[in-house]
């Protein structure tokens, strides 16, 4: 019953998407408005199909319907309810179902948002693109990786449950959905960009619209990435949170191009330049999400985060990527030069110049990450040699880019448009620079050593000071309401990035590790903390048995453990972490004691400032959401001065000229 329901849901969605796309294309090409109207209505079929399929899958998982092969592989009678629900995205086929569901949600939102502009050709072409993407994903499920496949032979009564690493923390309920909300969210700006190119309309209002969708998707993707790092940190047992893994890089690449877009879109809004570049960034972001999905699911690159390959998904995704790339390149080649608008950036020392530099740096970052991720394949294809490109390469190559970006973050907000003088910059940056110097001097006096971390701290303080200065100005002008809107939200997001940069540098440069062999009851000290091993305890829960070590860290008990799940051979290292704002102390049970009462080897990792990574991530997301709010109006006049020529007022995010002489 679940299988039938699910399959019919998928089929309904696929047919709806195909019919919708066909109807819209025919309607637009032949100028038949009623065909267009009908085509637009098919979205409800697609949505209904996705919802029905999801409900069927959830029902199968919750009620242990082992007649589905997917449930047989990813569920067990021992699995708690929450992990049964999240099992829908624990494995490849189900994750595509989640992707399709989120996509339908976004498409429905797009339909709703443009409900008053249904007749416009740009909207119609955007909907066509949306239908085609949805059709691909539903087709992928039906043809290649069907979550509703039936088991062969007799229906089993038990399954192994989800992968043990995915049953350990509740983060499995948040990270994938947020990540997909982010990655899939870039589909809508992509549809708008394709439609812009097809119809040749690049009015700035469409850019503002794209930017609004992009920033929401960007906020979700940032949250997804940070939660993913936090999850890896808590579960994988080596005290790290980012290892430049191909799957991590796959999610980072669209984030980088999207960040570049969010900044250069401001240039387009203010100076009506870089139209084609912005469109290219949107097209690239979506293409990179498809390429990223390919890397995660095809198994061509090894990763601890990748899905086990089903066979067939890889080639299908690669073909789709090729198609998307061909369409994007074709559209740009056809329309690109026609859509170019004249405009000049007079000097690099200006806000436009800073945004251009920002885009250049993000493009370089994305290039390095993509090259490093793909290079093992290139080397294999070129001369068969097998080369690894691991974390150290990315750390080395991206460090100078990050330093330049931090510097730009400090300088750009104070740069005026068009042209800046050195004097102006020196005046506006004096306080932030002084603050940075004080921070650096304080660090050095406190005993912090190491060139690169200190440079990062100084630049981060510089950027933080500059962002705080902007926020102070905003609050002084318009009260707390002034913090909402693009400027305020952007500066808050910059503060979050500063926190992340500082935490990243500190936790990498100043971590200390040791493996202490602790006899029962005998204290040991490490890095100023006292550890006492009190013994082990076996905890048995249905489906899971873990051996916990009881360790007293400075008087508080922690339980690093090694857990084994029923029906699975893997043992999962379960670390215990004490998180304080100053440092994290990360305990693992490195080797199980041979018998009760024997000493255990406890791994201890002391990493400073790790908590600020997660806090910084939260601040970035809050900043992004703040920037989506309408900006507050000025409550205090501009020091009672009448407006001169060229003065503008911020209204609804748009700058509206104010007549000369008005008291502001």
């Amino acid at each position, binding site marked *: 019953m679940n299988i039938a329901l699910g399959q019919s849901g998928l089929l309904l969605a696929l047919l709806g998407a195909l019919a919708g796309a066909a109807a819209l294309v025919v309607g637009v090409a032949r100028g038949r408005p009623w065909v267009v109207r009908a085509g637009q209505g098919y979205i409800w079929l697609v949505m209904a199909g996705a919802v029905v399929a999801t409900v069927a899958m959830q029902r199968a998982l919750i009620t242990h319907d082992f007649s589905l092969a997917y449930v047989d592989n990813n569920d067990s009678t021992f699995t708690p309810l929450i992990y049964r629900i999240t099992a829908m995205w624990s494995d490849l086929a189900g994750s595509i179902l989640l992707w399709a569901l989120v996509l339908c949600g976004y498409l429905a939102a797009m339909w709703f948002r443009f409900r008053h502009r249904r007749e416009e050709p740009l909207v119609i072409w955007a909907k066509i693109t949306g239908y085609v993407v949805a059709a691909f994903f539903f087709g992928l499920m039906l043809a290649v990786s069907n979550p509703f496949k039936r088991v062969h032979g007799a229906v089993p009564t038990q399954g192994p449950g989800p992968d043990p690493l995915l049953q350990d923390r509740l983060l499995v309920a948040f990270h994938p959905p947020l990540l997909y909300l982010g990655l899939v969210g870039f589909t809508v700006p992509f549809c708008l960009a394709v439609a812009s190119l097809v119809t040749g309309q690049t009015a700035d209002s469409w850019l503002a619209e794209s930017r609004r969708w992009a920033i929401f998707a960007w906020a979700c993707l940032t949250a997804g990435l940070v939660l993913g790092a936090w999850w890896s940190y808590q579960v994988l047992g080596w005290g790290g949170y980012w290892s430049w893994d191909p799957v991590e890089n796959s999610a980072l690449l669209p984030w980088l191009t999207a960040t570049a877009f969010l900044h250069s879109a401001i240039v387009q809004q203010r100076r009506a330049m870089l139209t084609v570049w912005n469109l290219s960034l949107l097209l690239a972001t979506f293409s990179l999400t498809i390429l990223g999905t390919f890397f995660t699911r095809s198994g*061509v690159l090894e990763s601890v985060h990748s899905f086990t*390959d089903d066979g067939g998904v890889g080639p299908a995704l690669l073909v789709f990527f090729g198609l998307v790339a061909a369409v994007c*390149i074709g559209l740009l080649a056809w329309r*690109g030069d026609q859509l170019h608008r004249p405009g000049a950036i007079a000097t690099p020392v200006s806000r436009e110049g800073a945004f251009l530099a920002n885009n250049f740096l993000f493009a370089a970052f994305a290039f390095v990450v993509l090259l490093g991720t793909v290079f093992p394949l290139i080397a294999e294809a070129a001369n068969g040699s097998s080369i690894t490109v691991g974390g150290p390469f990315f750390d080395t190559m991206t460090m100078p880019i990050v330093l330049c970006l931090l510097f730009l973050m400090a300088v750009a907000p104070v740069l005026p448009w068009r042209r800046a003088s050195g004097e102006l910059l020196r005046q506006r940056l004096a306080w932030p620079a002084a603050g940075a110097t004080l921070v650096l001097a304080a660090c050095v006096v406190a005993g912090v050593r190491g060139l690169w971390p200190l440079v990062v701290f100084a630049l981060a303080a510089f950027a933080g000071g500059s962002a705080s200065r902007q926020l102070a100005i905003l609050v002084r002008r318009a009260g707390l309401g002034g913090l909402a809107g693009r400027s305020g939200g952007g500066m808050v997001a910059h503060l979050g990035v500063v926190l992340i940069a500082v935490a990243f540098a500190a936790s990498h440069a100043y971590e200390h590790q040791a493996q202490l062999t602790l006899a029962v009851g005998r204290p040991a000290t490490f890095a100023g903390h006292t550890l006492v091993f009190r013994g082990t305890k076996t905890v048995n829960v249905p489906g899971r048995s873990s051996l916990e070590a009881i360790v007293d860290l400075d008087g508080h008990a922690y339980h690093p453990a090694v857990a084994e799940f029923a029906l699975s051979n893997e043992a999962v290292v379960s670390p215990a972490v004490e998180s304080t704002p100053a440092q994290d102390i990360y305990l693992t049970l490195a080797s199980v004691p041979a018998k009760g009462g024997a000493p255990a080897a406890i791994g201890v990792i002391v990493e400073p400032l790790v908590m600020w990574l997660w806090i910084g991530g939260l601040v970035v997301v809050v900043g992004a959401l703040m920037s989506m709010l309408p900006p507050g109006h000025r409550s205090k006049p501009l020091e009672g001065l009448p407006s001169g020529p060229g003065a503008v007022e911020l209204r609804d995010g748009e700058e509206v000229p104010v007549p000369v002489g008005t008291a502001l």
Partner: protein
Amino acid sequence: MRPTGRPRRTVLWVVVGTAVVVAALIAVVASAQPSSEVEGKSPLLGGPAPAISGPGLGGGHYSLAQFRGRWVLVNFMATWCEDCQQEMPQLMEFAKQHARAGDATVLTVADDPSDVGQLRRYLAAEGAGWPAVDDPVATVSYGIQGLPSSFLVAPDGTVFAYLIGEVRASELDSWLQQGAAKGFGAA
């Protein structure tokens, strides 16, 4: 400003360049095999086999050197590796065939020190009559990158073949025949 009459083509050229790069990327990626199926090549092939020595799982002490003069299939395994268990019948077959002639033997090396006890019991239960040794350093000196891994060592102590994944007795015999053709007859 651009001289009048010539239409702007910057975007076109940039896009064409990007198209070439993307096409190359797709070609490279499409030709890649899934990493789990990549053929193993060992840098040890043709060179002297690294030493193995350690306590035998069933007692005693074994070293690779004491099997000089015979073909040795150095087989790394662990009980938690399903493929290793699946290739066991093939290993039994191979060992039985050559037990009488005495020209070839299997030498199992435990890959995981914490698995040694279970491995001993498993080998005893299967009735595997060949030596099994516990030498954790051997997993590094042989460059083990996955289980099961087997190295075929010629009677003169050089590494003749590197077999990754399940081996078959027939495959091993063909390797032995190749070796005989090259003059690696039993000393």
